[in-house]
């Protein structure tokens, strides 16, 4: 009887201890990204990048994850974060590309001391003194400088027509572009904000041509970028277009004929389908095989950010605070660039300019802008 009792006691103790042991080992990195709504395209790339890194389990380092759709509202993102943080052993969160969602999640992350690894371009997220935000996509302060410099220094254009989206992404980029063109001595001869729902670009193209610019600079989301480029080609505007990062996305280029892309360039953090290194080419092939889609810079950036977290875990950072410290102080050689915090959470400091030659949907990297 005593033996049975002892065995039962040991079994119960083991069963009770099992979750504790497991929870000490199985760290988690939830993926909270918008896979529906206005940023579904970019959010899906972000999801794929994070999932790819987590599924690879580099060096045997494993982090559990769930993917949660944050859709298009800050409220949904906050709920998703609270839900994720209700689970044990969350050491970092792959957090939304959508700026307003990041702004809503950041106070909670700071309160709960969990780092957010994001690729959001909204400048404000690293300007608020929040020590738990790490951005792996170059901020507007980097890519908009590259975009403006390429226009003025390489293309030698000085009469700029600027068309931007009336969203957080568009307005943030517009402000940086205005400053940079002014600093570089270029003149903004035309400027217009477009709502994401605008489909007919003919009116804005007509007004734009009347202002007699020598270059068109775009700061639009993916769909509007494709519409604008298509209609600009059809209207024989014959002006070079230097677009925002949306234009580097293979999904954007897929909406256009190669001929319509002639003379179109874009800024980006990277361009995986353009190649550049064996590691990048290996990633691109693996990505295509896993998701049956073309990778873009957002996928690469989130992949790199997630890999940096996994790298830190592999080196012994088993808690959120240790992962945060590793991100804040360490550096990581990623696929796109070397990442290191500037002290505010900006990890990416390089940008590229890609251009299409009119015969292919695969752009060529024509200029790299490294941190100065």
């Amino acid at each position, binding site marked *: 009887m005593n033996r049975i009792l002892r065995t039962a006691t040991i079994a119960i103790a083991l069963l009770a201890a099992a979750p504790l042991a497991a929870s000490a080992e199985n760290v988690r990195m939830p993926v909270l990204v918008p896979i529906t709504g206005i940023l579904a395209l970019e959010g899906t790339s972000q999801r794929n990048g994070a999932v790819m890194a987590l599924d690879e389990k580099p060096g045997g380092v494993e982090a559990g994850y769930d993917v949660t759709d944050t859709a298009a*509202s800050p409220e949904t993102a*906050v709920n998703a974060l609270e839900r994720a943080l209700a689970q044990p052993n969350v050491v970092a969160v792959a957090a939304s590309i959508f700026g307003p969602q990041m*702004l809503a999640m950041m106070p909670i992350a700071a309160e709960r001391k969990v780092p957010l690894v994001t690729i959001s371009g909204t400048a404000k997220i690293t300007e608020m003194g929040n020590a738990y935000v790490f951005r792996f996509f170059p901020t507007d302060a980097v890519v908009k400088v590259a975009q403006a410099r390429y226009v003025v220094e390489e293309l030698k254009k000085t009469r700029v027509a600027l068309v931007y989206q009336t969203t957080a992404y568009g307005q943030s980029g517009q402000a940086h572009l205005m400053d940079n063109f002014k600093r570089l001595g270029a003149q903004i001869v035309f400027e217009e904000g477009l709502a994401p729902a605008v489909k007919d670009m003919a009116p804005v193209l007509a007004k734009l041509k009347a202002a007699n610019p020598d270059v068109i600079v775009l700061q639009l989301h993916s769909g509007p970028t494709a519409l604008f480029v298509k209609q600009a080609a059809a209207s024989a505007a014959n002006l070079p277009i230097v677009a925002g990062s949306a234009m580097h996305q293979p999904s954007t280029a897929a909406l256009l004929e190669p001929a319509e892309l002639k003379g179109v360039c874009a800024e980006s953090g990277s361009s995986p389908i353009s190649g550049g290194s064996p590691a990048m080419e290996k990633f691109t092939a693996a990505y295509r095989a896993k998701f049956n889609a073309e990778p873009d810079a957002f996928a690469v950036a989130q992949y790199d950010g997630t890999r940096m977290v996994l790298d830190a875990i592999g080196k012994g950072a088993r808690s959120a605070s240790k992962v945060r410290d590793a991100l804040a102080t360490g550096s990581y050689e990623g696929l796109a660039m070397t990442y290191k915090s500037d002290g505010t959470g900006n990890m990416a400091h390089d940008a590229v300019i890609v251009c299409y030659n009119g015969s292919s949907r695969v752009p060529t990297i024509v200029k790299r802008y490294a941190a100065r």
Partner: protein
Amino acid sequence: MSVTSAPSQPAFRAAHAPWIAGAALLALYAAFMGDLYGLRLLTQAGVYALLVIGYQFVFGHAGAFSLAQGAFFGLGAYVTGILGTKFGWGFLATFPLSVLLPAAFALLIAAPVLRLETHYFALATLGLAQVALIGAVNWESLTGGANGLVGVPRVTLFGARLVTGWPLLLFVWSLVAVGGLLAWRLTRGMKGLAYHTLRERPLAAASVGLDGGMLRATAFVLSAAYGGAAGALHATTLGVLSPEVFDFSIMVACLTMAVVGGRGRIAGAILGAVLLVHLPEWLRGLEQYYLIAYGAALLLVVILAPDGLAGIVDRFWRRGRGRSETLPFIPASTRGAHVGGAALHVENLAKSFGGVAALDGVNLRVAPGEIVGLIGPNGSGKSTLANLITGLYRPDRGRIRLDTTPIETLRPHEIARLGVRRTFQTAELIAGASLIDNIAVAYAATANPSLPHARSRALTVLAEAGLTSRAWEEAAAQPAGVRRLAEVARATVRGPRLLVLDEPSAGLTEDERTTLVRLLRNLASKGAAVLVIDHNVPFLSGLARRLVCLEAGRVIAEGTPGAVLADEAVRRAYLGTAEKKP
């Protein structure tokens, strides 16, 4: 004091028992199941509950399909957001402004917007929301543009900042309780019945003196105030604000919560908000497929529960629970009754529709205490005359007086308030209400109306009409004769000064017709002027002392029934020949 007993009216406490139990369950869920994530969801559900309780005023009660509730929500949120982030105002200072500003805005636009018919009204209110969204995105210096505002102050009470979790949850749900209680007081009893009538039968509402425009405007302003309050709570609980608060998805969520929970019900608003805030979270694990599951679940609820979840609960709970209610006996002369009869004077009245003259120079007089029958073939202008007298139409020419008061330019409810009552060709009974409440609503436009008083008076009239046993039965389920008599009862319950009846005998059995004659004679004996339009000439001949015959918009004969029926012009009008007897 005598008492009157009416069968099958559920008692108040029993009717509310499931909701009290539901509230207790919700509290238990929060207490035992709620981690920070669960408490946040419940807090968010509270914010939406307040939004939807407000929306029930305009959508549920007034029956106006407003799409502006999301805009009021956003406006309230931005008032708190802007004042909090740019001027450092605390929540307790910004909250009243978040309530008042949307309400004031709603008041400003109520007059032009509420004039519009249903779908145009919906489009106009949707337009408001879109303008607000564009303003929030583009007025960057004030609103922060698409990035929005960061650092909206949290609620501080007695020097303590209410953090996420229990403190914020209790604060939000306290406001929901206050808002719900206020809404209940504003829509219960006669007020609720008035809104129900306006929503289901606007003509009937006007015919008992209810000012539909004022009721709708009040509901619109109240909904805006609640929307603003919810928006303020949203901003402070989230701590950030972006133009997404004006997004159409907020309006869709609000509408869905109202429909799924139960239109017009406070419990429905809360149930809908709690369910629809939690449902996407329960399904979130399905990743991009959760929207399909979410849509399917909603579709299922709408198909299986057209009255919403609250409607299902009510229906199951009330099944077999009807019991009698004791109503105080109210003598006929007490408040709410019109005093004495009034003479109707119609002079040279004309009305055309396009090129067709419906009435052309009609003169008519009905003295107090007199019953006058109005006959004429189809299309002769009888109903047009009734609609002109009761204000549904405006005459092109001529005058209508009640005693010495001109009424031809007054609106229907204003004429009704002078003591003019009417019935319609098709009985305008309120669907979803009992027979007794269809009659009690006649008192809705009196000062300080009381539902028990009105029901007591209604029961007396129902007894006179032989309908006591059907008092609490659904009006829509009654046979045509009962419906007709019930409408007459509504028109007569307050002792009108002038009564206009449009084909009251149609569909009545012989017994019911006898009852009708008795009711009308009794009314006339008390001084009321009665104008009865009917095709049943024998019925009218037995009822009225005087007949007036219309033909092609003109009076062609007037006098005693015998004289009019013998008139050659009348016989020709009815039969196409003067040779045969009618």
